[in-house]
């Protein structure tokens, strides 16, 4: 009797609380996004009298000379390129770090830890980028995302590589495989599951990144999606429907990721919680 009460009672209570705390704000966002301007301005939680999804959608896209479209293209390039580079570079580092014991290991471990903890120094980074001619360019920002993401990715890869038997490498070497072929043809394919985790976690992270584009890629022409949102915030104070439509649109990519890769995301983000 008490267990049934606990099972259903607590469950029902939890459902009710999550609806109030999580579902209503999200629903508010979605509903406001499809209202017309006058109705959205009331900022209340009500069912829209008219659905203006397409209109709002078009208005948001065409605002400020299709800035959101440019931003989506920029963000996509940023995310895809930097995640690709991250996966390859981090896997290479992790593989050597895990397999070859040397005096460099201590240094490398220290640097990885530093990368996880130390907040990046902003203005000096701009100074370095400027001297390389990469400040305010997309390639510059891509390299920044790679540099700041390396530590985390190396860590995930290394833990996984430890579970791949070393005999495999040795067999390949005996068969005359050079290091490059050994890595890209033998090891890399074996990393598939951890690669998916890294890709999913990092792409959500980089797509949602606001601070780095704000510092290292200012200017409307280069805006990423998070920056458009921030720029629209002041411009759309009178048309909340468009502001919320914008939020809704940039929420969709992470949401799709979550639907398909729920398990990998959780696995990647909880790595380290359980001591093996």
């Amino acid at each position, binding site marked *: 009797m008490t267990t049934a009460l*606990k*099972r259903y009672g607590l*469950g*029902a209570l*939890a*459902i009710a609380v*999550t609806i109030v705390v*999580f579902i209503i*704000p*999200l629903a*508010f*966002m979605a509903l406001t996004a499809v209202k017309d301007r006058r109705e959205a301005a*009331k*900022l*209340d939680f009500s069912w829209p009298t008219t659905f203006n999804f397409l209109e709002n959608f078009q208005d948001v896209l065409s605002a400020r000379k299709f800035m959101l479209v440019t931003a989506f293209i920029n963000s996509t390039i940023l995310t895809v390129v930097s995640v690709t580079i991250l996966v390859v570079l*981090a896997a*290479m580092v992790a593989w*050597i770090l895990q*397999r*070859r*014991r040397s005096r460099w290991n201590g240094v490398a*471990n220290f*640097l990885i*830890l530093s990368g996880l*903890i*130390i*907040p990046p*120094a902003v*203005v*000096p*980074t701009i*100074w*370095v980028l400027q001297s390389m001619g990469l400040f305010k360019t997309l390639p510059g920002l891509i*390299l*920044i995302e790679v*540099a700041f993401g390396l530590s*985390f990715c190396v860590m995930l890869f290394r833990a996984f590589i430890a579970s791949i038997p070393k005999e495999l490498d*040795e067999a390949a*070497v005996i068969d005359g495989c050079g*290091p490059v072929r050994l890595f890209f043809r033998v090891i890399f394919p074996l990393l598939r599951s951890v690669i998916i985790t890294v890709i999913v976690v990092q792409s959500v*992270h980089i797509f949602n990144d*606001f*601070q780095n584009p*704000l*510092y290292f890629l200012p200017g409307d022409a280069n805006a990423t*999606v998070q920056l458009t949102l*921030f720029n629209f915030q002041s411009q759309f104070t009178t048309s909340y429907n468009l502001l*919320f439509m914008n*939020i809704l649109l*940039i*929420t969709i990519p*992470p949401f799709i990721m979550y639907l398909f890769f*729920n398990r990998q*995301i959780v696995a990647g*983000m*909880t*790595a*380290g*919680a*359980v001591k093996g």
Partner: protein
Amino acid sequence: MTVNTAPTVSAARPRQAVAPKRRKGKSAYPYWFYLPAAVVYTALFLIPTFASFFFSFTRWTLTDFTFIGLDNFVQFFQEPALLKGLTNTFIYGAVTSVLKVVLGMLLAVLLTSQIIARGYLRSVIFFPVLLSSIGVGIVFTILMDPSKGMINKALEVIGIEGPAWLVDPAWALVSVALVDVWKGVGLATVIYIAGIVSIPAEYFEAAKMDGASSFKSFFNITLPLARPATATVIILSLIGGLRSFDLIWAMTKGGPGFTSDVIASVIFKQYQAGFYGLSTAGNVVLFLIVTAIILPLSMFLNRKEVEQ
């Protein structure tokens, strides 16, 4: 967001029996594999970090600098606006991590017990982790509007007069911290769930057999054995909380006045104003605070773990 902590790094891995056979210059694990990553990391992370220590002692225009000694730091600790940012950083970090630890633990215990709709609850609590901070910030800025906002309207219905949230200097920082918890508690929860699930079920059965209440088994089994999870949650949320910028910038921009400024937003404001030296000094202060808190704390949390 996605940083991790010491435990995994130091996690013991089966030691390889012998070093790879060294045919001169022909190891199967060449060092140049480090090179591309090392170049990017050094150029864009290590050099700026070291340079920040130097430039924090200067008045700096990016092309030119004059050495001014400790002036930047003195200014940082004397000017009320900047000092407020410093104390707020501590408050923000403490409030968010404590709430995430407590709520995350409670939710995880709830979600690992036999209640209905666990899948739904887990998904809905975790989902905000993946949302953009700016989007969440804007939505909650509107929900927290003192007169028109839904939160205060709802409180009014049940007879409570809600605070002015983001416009009230006394509440602004706490309001942002609460939104941060709303967004981040899902991560703490899944970390705790992973920790609790790894505790052998026999312990709970044995305790139950001996007549321990669920209260007792929580404090004597779950809490101590989920320690690695607690360590991860505390360290993750402290690292995130101390450097937090996005949410604060989206919701208050440090206002009203400078009452909700944190170091990260001070750094940005000084950068915008062209005080590059002062901004960099802010970075150095943040660096020192984060390492001074995180290093001893992670050492402490991991040491306890070894003793068990």
